[in-house]
């Protein structure tokens, strides 16, 4: 079986996926690790963990495509591609009817218009500002003393969501503190926070034609509150699967299998520092 990998080094988390081609494509293993300060090591650890889960040796993987903001730090990869191409490809693989991808990650969010073959037709991204990204939600969670996993479900309990006027990741803290001082409930504050981000993200996404089916990818897709808020603003349902978080890595792995072609080259796995891989 020909083996290839996609490694998506995001600002917050690194995702790795191993695919096998034995006449048909199979997802064999996947892994998720925190990126942390050592981007190179995160890429290696993610890749090794995905290999372990797939039950294959890193040496048997013939081609690796790196993506995400840290892609140029992947020392063992064959090539790098942008997360825009990879998320489009991954979303199309997960939901072949996908025509629009909304990807919300740790420090950027983007909307991608996708063709019938998973090709990128158009895309827009947030520019030099973390508004509408995972970082915004993480800040809100921190101010409220809640875990990242808790805020989505809690936001669904909002009865009277507050109005968050700022979309600035820094200034949202003072908005939240002032609502707390007014005695507002955390769920109502979170309801407002999620809606504010959803509105900003959708206004960005409307710059590409939003066509059905709309697939959400990226780490924030695991936040049920965000999914519902986006659906509310859009007035339609989003496709969100359990692998949505891995869409970038899946897309990268699909490109890897394609780029590898028939020329299988074993032993591309050369960690920069062998000591920490044992």
């Amino acid at each position, binding site marked *: 079986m020909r083996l290839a990998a996609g490694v998506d080094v995001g600002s917050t988390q690194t995702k790795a996926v191993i695919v096998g081609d034995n006449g048909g494509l199979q997802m064999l293993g996947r892994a998720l690790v925190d990126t942390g300060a050592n981007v190179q090591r995160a890429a290696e650890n993610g890749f090794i963990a995905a290999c372990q889960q797939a039950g294959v040796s890193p040496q048997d993987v013939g081609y690796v495509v790196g993506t995400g*903001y840290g892609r140029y730090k992947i020392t063992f990869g064959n*090539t*790098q*591609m*942008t*997360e*825009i*191409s990879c998320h489009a490809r991954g979303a199309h693989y997960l939901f072949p009817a996908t025509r629009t991808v909304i990807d919300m990650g740790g420090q950027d969010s983007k909307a991608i218009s996708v*063709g019938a*073959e998973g*090709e*990128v*037709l*158009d*895309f*827009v*991204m947030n*520019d*030099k500002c973390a508004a509408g990204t995972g970082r915004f939600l993480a800040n809100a969670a921190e101010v409220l003393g809640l875990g990242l996993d808790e805020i989505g479900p809690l936001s669904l309990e909002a009865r009277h969501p507050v109005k968050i006027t700022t979309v600035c990741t820094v200034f949202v803290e003072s908005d939240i503190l002032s609502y707390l001082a007014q005695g507002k409930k955390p769920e109502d504050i979170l309801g407002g926070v999620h809606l504010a981000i959803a509105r900003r993200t959708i206004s960005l996404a409307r*710059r*590409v*034609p939003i066509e059905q089916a709309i697939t959400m990818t990226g780490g924030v897709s695991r936040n049920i509150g965000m999914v519902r808020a986006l659906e509310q603003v859009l007035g339609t349902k989003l496709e969100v699967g359990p692998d949505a978080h891995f869409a970038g890595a899946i897309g990268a792995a699909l490109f890897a299998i394609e780029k590898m072609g028939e020329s299988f080259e074993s032993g591309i796995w050369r960690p920069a520092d062998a000591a920490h891989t044992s």
Partner: protein
Amino acid sequence: MSEAPRSEYRGQIHQQQKDLMLHWYERLDESARTGNPPAVSLMISGNCIELLEGFGAVPLYPEVNALQLAIRHQSLDPILAAEELGYAADNCAYVKADIGAMIKGITPAGTPLPTPALVLCNFVGCNTYVKWFEHAAEFQGAPLAMLDVPFLRTAEPRAEDIDYVVRQLHEIVRQLEQITGRRFDMDRFREAVRCSARVEEAWSRIKNLARRTPSPFDAYFDAITLMGPLYVYRGSPEGVAFFELALKEMEEKVARGEGIYDQEKFRVVIEGPPPYPFFRSFRDMFATWKATAVASTYSTVGGLWEFGFRHDPDHPFESLALHMLAHNVTNRNYLQRYEQIRRYVEEWDADGIVIHFVKSCRLFSAGQGDMRDYFTRQLGVPTLYIESDLEDPRYFSEAQIKNRMDAFFEALEHSRSIGTLRRGAAALRHPAAGAGNAPVAGERLKILP
């Protein structure tokens, strides 16, 4: 991606360009020391360099000084100096670099620039210049003259517009005669206009060579190299010799089938000025993908000649007015700019468009979001929109811009591999756009939901 391939042709013109620009700074230096030749500050956009030739005066272009500082990574200090003086963060960064450089005594050549005999605000399309030149005159202690060129609000300028500009040109001539004590040499002026027409013919033919595949030069990055002589020497025999040589070299490249890269992969049209503080790395982002700019709107700021306009020695003043009113991109209305770009895509056989939004230039950049929508949604042409600045390095995020550029070219490559990428006329969703779909002046664009 691998290292960016070498993307520049080195011919005789490159040395000559350097020599010409050096000679220009020598003349400015001479003017600074002796007052002879007199220097006149001018704006690049729709410039009337021919008028200066009638006095043997040397032009002083504040934009050229500002961009020279930016290319040499020296623009931030003067920008900060201007901000300390009270210029706001979103003021035009060219203005701040120029004013800040005056305050700090920074000049591109290191030697002092002359005090202009006249600061001539040939206000074409950019209203920021009105205040910029007013401030420049104040800081330099030089007289200021306003040349009010009405913005082109109809498809063609009206007779009254032309007459209005011609009468002002006559006034400027009288004013310059008084200031410099020199008589305006009508023969020399007419000869300058004749030279300009020849330069414009050669320049236009060079630009039309970019319709070939591969294009022999990059109509954005290489065009910038040629734009210095175009604005400083257009009305002189040196300019004619330079551009006729450039045409010959480009024709030879075409005859050899020589492009910029070993293989030209993508052909794009670029809208907006470059990020001068990161000029090299910006060019490399295109070179990495072997992408050539086959046309650009920026190279038509000083004048738009590839569609046929030429200065006319039989009607020198009227042709100057016409040039300033209608034949430069900045004074034309937005729908005319759309049509200019659409023609480039169709006739220069492009795969897509790259729009560079300049944060500190609201005037040129406002509306580019709609422009992107027009090309992507109505015409179906792949269009990339990126933001930074032409002068202020603080607005340039290399990783973010590179990411967008790579994604854009990856998408074009992917579309080509599955057979959906179209080029030129075929790239336009409505091939008959020229007839029915293109916006015309005065017609409101259809706004899509």
